[in-house]
């Protein structure tokens, strides 16, 4: 490399940095398959265990479906969040990201969107498996919308808390302890809205829960956006 030959933009574009992080996470996952496989195996095990442990009659089962589904998604998501940040921490790559002359919230959004994609992929696999195993078709556009909204809120605050907890030696335990109380409103709204859809309630009945989900998504994303820089500061 000859001196002065290197051409650097005056300011690294936020979008360019964010997409580079998403690309990096997707390619790494495509090769390593560590994150999705761990989440998926865990999610499928939870569904199997509920299926055999509860032995429910069809009526009770339909009332519990939304709860089982969200417990599965949330626990699998916790595994994914921990793993996603551990990859950055263990090889010092988080420092590599923070050393780049880029707005640090680009790092946050890049990691968040990648985590969100992984969570949605797992949910998309879990839904048909659940339908087959419980002999009931739960796949519908409305339920997909709830999963889309619920997982966004979960990942928005989850990525922030995973970045905090990754600094600690007890990171595997610390993340659920920090995360689960905080995401309770999102979880309640998601379960209620999903239950309403699965039980065939009219849209007007579940609209409140959907509105609540949207509000929490905006609040959690905004809070994470505002405090991420402080969280990664040593």
């Amino acid at each position, binding site marked *: *490399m000859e001196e*002065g030959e290197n051409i650097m933009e005056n300011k*690294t574009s936020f979008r360019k940095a964010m997409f580079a992080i998403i*690309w*990096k996470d997707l390619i790494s996952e495509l090769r*390593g398959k560590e994150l999705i496989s761990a989440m998926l195996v865990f999610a499928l095990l939870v569904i199997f265990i509920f299926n055999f442990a509860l032995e429910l009659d069809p009526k009770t089962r339909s009332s519990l479906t939304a709860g089982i589904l969200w417990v599965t998604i949330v626990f699998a998501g916790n595994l994914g969040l921990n793993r996603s940040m551990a990859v950055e921490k263990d*090889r010092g790559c988080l420092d590599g990201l923070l050393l780049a002359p880029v*707005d640090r919230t680009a790092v946050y959004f890049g990691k968040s969107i990648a985590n969100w994609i992984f969570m949605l992929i797992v949910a998309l696999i879990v839904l048909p498996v659940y339908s087959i195993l419980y002999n009931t078709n739960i796949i519908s556009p409305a339920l997909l919308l709830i999963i889309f909204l619920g997982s966004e809120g979960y990942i928005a605050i989850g990525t922030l808390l995973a970045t905090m907890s990754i600094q600690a030696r007890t990171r595997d335990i610390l993340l659920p302890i920090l995360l689960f109380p905080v995401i309770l409103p999102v979880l309640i709204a998601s379960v209620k809205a999903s239950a309403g859809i699965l039980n065939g309630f009219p849209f007007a009945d579940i609209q409140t829960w959907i509105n609540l989900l949207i509000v929490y998504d905006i609040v959690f994303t905004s809070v994470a956006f505002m405090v991420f820089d402080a969280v990664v500061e040593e």
Partner: protein
Amino acid sequence: MEVIIEVRNLVKRFGHKQVLRKLDFTVQKGEFVALLGSNGAGKTTLLRILSSLSKPNYGEVQIGGYYLPGQAAQVRRKLGVVSHLPLLYGDLSAEENLKFYSALYGLVDIQKNMAEILNLVGLYKRRKDLVRTFSRGMQQRLAIGRAILHDPEVLLLDEPHTGLDQDAANMLDSLLQQIATRGRTIVMTSHDFPRVANLATRFDVLYKGKIHSSKLAKDLPQHGLLEYYQSIVEEIDGGGGKHNGE
């Protein structure tokens, strides 16, 4: 000569423990400074503050005319950092890792630049291989490639020889010499006295959170780096931090 790094009254505490105690440190453009000191002396903490990864409790840091932490983004553009961890992704190839960091640094026309960097660090033939298949020495060379990708004015190296065998360490030394001859400023911490003695142009002894002595390479007696270091440490506390001479 032009001053490129200027640190004044730097204080860093972790809880009640004061790691850096009103430290002053100045580096001229083009110097290759070796920071010598025992474990816990504050070498890594100083480099983390210089690289904007850590904030000081007190003091002033200026790099290339920009102040930390206020102008951190401008400072980061001028810095390349190599630590004992490679800061590379194992599931990406060497080329993909450099491509990723190029995007983060906003580099354009990267193909030619990447090929030159990979040639420089001797990894062009392995550019398509995943980094997790690389030896420690190869990963460290690629880490240097990553650090110089944006042609930084200052290169900060935190014990880059850690875990390298003799051949890999020799290759790393020759790479650092090439970078130094291009007029780039290098600040490196190390415990490997024989190696740094052949590389650096200045040796600073960092002990108990302060720079206690600074000497140019030309002012050192031949093979006298260890003796110089030990004499400084003995002068401070009667030899309590004696180096093992590895």
